[in-house]
């Protein structure tokens, strides 16, 4: 083992602490441990916690993590975090991990603040203004993006059109009939600027993956699909508190770490999946991963670069907009990357040797990226 504990502390007080919320207890313990280690919050690049969401804690403390663990399986969760942190540090995912606990078990102040409870920041500072889930919030930065970069409603709609074209080649896709930009813009407005066809499906379904060592992987019936690189991060439980409404910090961190770990350049990538709950996500994904410059993704999609026959096949199952979207769609994005690299996709991309799969969690609250390859480097 190459990993050690360098800071440790409990909260300043114990017993009855009715003047601190649960999140404040997390923070108090964290700052005491940082002081014990002679570190500041900016030294922390990995975060693990249970009870609270690592997203809430990241935003609350002002962190910018490259590794997170929210394993929450009861009182031993923090031991598990230690074990995961050892693996993460040894793997080079991060250097300095903070693990926190805070619980207002007696006074019950701000309990449940991590999961959208009445005392959470999101409940206090977003809920009063009438949000109704992702349709009303996920796209709240889109108008700002459009003003900043001149993206048109037609370009946004073209993301849905391109994916429907892929869905048309996929017998399992829920919606397969071709659509035009005019069809998208004529569909009902759900939450301006989003029309119905720019919002994901709502379906039932599921999936699973099985992983083993690369060494053993050669002895299985299916061709191995190697994991070349990975990345993860979290930013804020509130979309209104994103550092930049036109770009996801999580996409940049997770994508950057995954591509770097994989040692692949953009030109090496044959196939791309970007979790598309709404039509702007492929646009943010293309830019935050660095496939195009900021502001160029709308024209890039409109010109057909991500369609069948285009130079960067994107969301080739039809995506959340046309294939399926159960709610936590990430599993389906992973499945399509695996199918493509195996050479078994319904809309197979020729020579799909390297596939990048970018996922989102919440409404830009979390992000993760996996680079898959047919060959080990």
């Amino acid at each position, binding site marked *: 083992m190459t990993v050690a504990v360098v800071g440790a502390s409990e909260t300043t007080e114990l017993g009855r602490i009715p*003047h*601190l*919320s649960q*999140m*404040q207890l997390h*923070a108090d313990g964290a*700052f005491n441990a*940082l002081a014990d280690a002679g570190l*500041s*919050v*900016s030294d922390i690049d990995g975060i693990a916690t249970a009870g609270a969401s690592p997203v809430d804690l990241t*935003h*609350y*403390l*002002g962190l910018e993590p490259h590794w997170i663990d929210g394993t929450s399986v009861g009182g031993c969760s923090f031991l598990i975090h230690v074990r995961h942190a050892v693996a993460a540090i040894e793997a080079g995912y991060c250097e300095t991990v903070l693990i926190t606990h805070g619980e207002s078990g007696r006074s019950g*102040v*701000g309990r449940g*603040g991590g999961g959208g409870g*009445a*005392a959470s*920041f999101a*409940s*206090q*500072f*977003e*809920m*009063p*203004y*009438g*949000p*109704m889930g992702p*349709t*009303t*919030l996920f*796209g*709240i*930065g*889109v*108008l*700002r993006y459009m*003003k900043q970069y001149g993206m048109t409603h037609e370009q946004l709609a073209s993301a849905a059109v391109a994916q429907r074209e892929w869905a048309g080649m996929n017998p399992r896709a829920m919606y397969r009939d071709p659509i035009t930009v005019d069809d998208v813009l004529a569909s*009902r*407005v*759900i*939450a*301006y*600027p*989003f029309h119905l066809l720019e919002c994901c499906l709502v379906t039932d379904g599921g999936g699973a993956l099985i992983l083993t060592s690369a060494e053993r992987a050669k002895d299985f019936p299916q061709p191995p699909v190697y994991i070349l690189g990975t990345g993860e991060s979290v930013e804020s439980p*509130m979309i*209104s*508190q994103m550092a930049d*409404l036109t770009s996801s910090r999580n996409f940049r961190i997770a994508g950057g770490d995954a591509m770097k770990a994989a040692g692949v350049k953009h030109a090496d990538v044959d196939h791309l999946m970007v979790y598309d709950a709404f039509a702007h996500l492929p646009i943010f994904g293309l830019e935050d991963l660095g496939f195009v410059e900021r502001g160029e993704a709308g024209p890039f999609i409109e010109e057909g670069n991500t369609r069948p026959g285009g130079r960067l096949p994107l969301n080739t199952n039809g995506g959340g907009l046309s294939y399926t979207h159960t709610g936590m769609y990430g599993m389906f994005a992973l499945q399509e990357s695996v199918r493509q690299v195996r050479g078994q996709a319904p809309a197979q991309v020729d020579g799909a040797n390297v596939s990048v799969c970018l996922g989102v969690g919440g409404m830009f609250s979390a992000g993760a990226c996996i680079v898959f390859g047919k060959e080990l480097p």
Partner: protein
Amino acid sequence: MSKEGLRPRYAPTPTPDTAHFWEGTRNHKLLLQRCTDCGTVYFPPRAFCPENGSSNIEVFEASGKAKLISYTINHRQHPSFESPYAIAIVQLDEGPMMMSNIVDCEQTPEALVLDMPLEVTFEKVSDEITVPLFRPVGEGS
């Protein structure tokens, strides 16, 4: 925006670190926090600066001036709102972003122009909670 026949809007539960903010809005003051070490003005409220972790902070009253950064216009039914209504992000002149609603203004893309100047106004939700809302400068004041 909360009209007759609609349920009052959601009233949040303050916590010890946010209580001063909600006490401020109850008195029609928009309170922010500033780090006295690095000068960062931040929101939502915390007992330390989210830039550097310093607990050398002060509470001060914001100007109430803001501009419209972005929004969606929800067309579905909500028990507390008359649809369609805009859910907006505004940037306070002091820097921080916050979610709010834009009142005294048509809830249309034509009327809700990005970067338009706004000023804070307050709406009482309950005895404890008053929420900050924003209206175009010069309208209804």
